[in-house]
């Protein structure tokens, strides 16, 4: 009898999202589905290069080793998802809807900043319930290629190069020392692939293949670098 009452209360509170800390802290303690790896985005003249690893883990089990973390939000706007898979998928779906609606109302292509703001609104408002680190990157006719980072907590800031996810800690040094302003598209692709490979080597939650995409005025070009084709580094 006692147990039934407890369950009812817990479920009601979850649905109303009133007593937030109990549920969110409990959830973070459990191995909830999807703690994901490493994401990165770089601006260049004429567009952006985005990249991600492909591993989704549930505790120690790799639930999906070929995940696509580069999610299109609009024709020339993508988001790179890291953190809880369920949360980021839900947020991305909601923002895709909102941005699509906005774009139809305006009858023109939305700005990358608008998309980033929508992400920030949602991630900040529900910061207690969500575990989502998102990088929004794309191209719009007004300001060209832009990268905005919306990390856990709901801050938003524009950066020329941004990394995120659990594997990002291992590559801040590499990115800071190797990034130069004014790199070409090919240089950005190589830079992103190498950085992600280094992160995947050291972070247990990152791995699989490297997914890359170039978003520019011409559209979107996607590519996959398979495990055995990744750039090779010293195996000390």
């Amino acid at each position, binding site marked *: 009898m006692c*147990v039934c009452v*407890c*369950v009812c*209360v*817990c*479920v009601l*509170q*979850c*649905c109303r999202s*009133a*007593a937030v*800390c*109990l*549920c969110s*802290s*409990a*959830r973070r303690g*459990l191995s*909830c*589905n*999807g703690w994901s790896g490493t994401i990165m985005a770089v601006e260049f003249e004429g567009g952006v290069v985005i990249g991600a690893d492909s591993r*989704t883990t*549930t505790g120690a*089990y790799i*639930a*999906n080793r*070929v*995940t696509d973390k580069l999610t299109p939000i609009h024709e020339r706007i993508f988001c790179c998802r890291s953190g*809880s*898979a*369920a*949360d980021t*998928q*839900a947020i991305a*779906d909601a923002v895709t809807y909102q941005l699509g609606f906005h774009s139809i109302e305006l009858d023109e292509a939305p700005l990358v900043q608008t998309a980033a703001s929508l992400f920030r609104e949602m991630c900040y408002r529900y910061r207690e*319930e969500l575990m989502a680190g998102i990088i929004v990157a794309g191209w719009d006719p007004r300001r060209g290629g832009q990268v905005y980072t919306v990390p856990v907590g709901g801050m938003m800031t524009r950066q020329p190069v941004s990394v995120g996810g659990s594997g990002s800690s291992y590559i801040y040094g590499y990115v800071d020392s190797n990034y130069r302003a004014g790199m070409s598209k090919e240089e950005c692709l190589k830079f992103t692939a190498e950085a992600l490979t280094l992160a995947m080597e050291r972070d247990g939650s990152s791995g699989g293949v490297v997914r890359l995409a170039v978003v520019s005025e011409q559209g979107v070009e996607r590519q996959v670098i398979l495990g055995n084709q990744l750039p090779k580094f010293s195996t000390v």
Partner: protein
Amino acid sequence: TVPVNGSEEGKIKAPKPMKTGTTIAGVVYKDGVVLGADTRATSEEVVADKMCAKIHYIAPNIYCCGAGTAADTEKTTDMLSSNLTIFSMNSGRNPRVVMAVNILQDMLFRYRGMIGAHLILGGVDCTGSHLYTVGPYGSMDKVPYLAMGSGKLPAMGILEDRFKGNMDLEEAKALVSDAIHAGIMSDLASGNNIDLCVITKEGVDYIRPHRESIYNYKRQAKYKYKPGTTPVLNKTVNQLELVHETVQMMETAGSS
């Protein structure tokens, strides 16, 4: 009442969700999708149901394997099936697998993981053959082959080893069957028979069971008692008198 600051005093511990133990798997092959499941439902250490049906009907072209809490998977798939039937009637279209996935994601995310349903959805619609998994928190993955449940590790081993793109039907059935069999052999909570469900553009072949357990559970004795086993000592008959009768008409859709 539960304190909002989460202090230790009076903190309610959520009860452990009852895992029923399962091995379920799915594979996309040349002409469609093959789904497979074991048939054991456990209640802690006792096998509660030896011939449990874990492949649930969602739509004529979509079936769903459920792992996790049995009650949750049952009710979730029922609700999904009802919603898709209503949609079909309203729009005159056959439901698509992505629709089922979206409805599930919305619902499971809203309940924040409290509904312990780990589902594998497979189906064939006008856009092709699809296999999705939806987790209890509302995350979704689209992959060509999958295993879920407590026996997913051994089953995934078999699938990773032998899966190829564009297999033919017999190969795909053998692969799924072997994957479930590996789960049954290596996981205590999975067992008994193996059910398969083959979904193609032409229709559905629900093979229940595909492979039976080699352990035959034949009862050793009969448990029926002949009339007269218990002696009757006394018999009293009370006639009930009809005092008052009323008839109340119900509002039905047919009445004008």
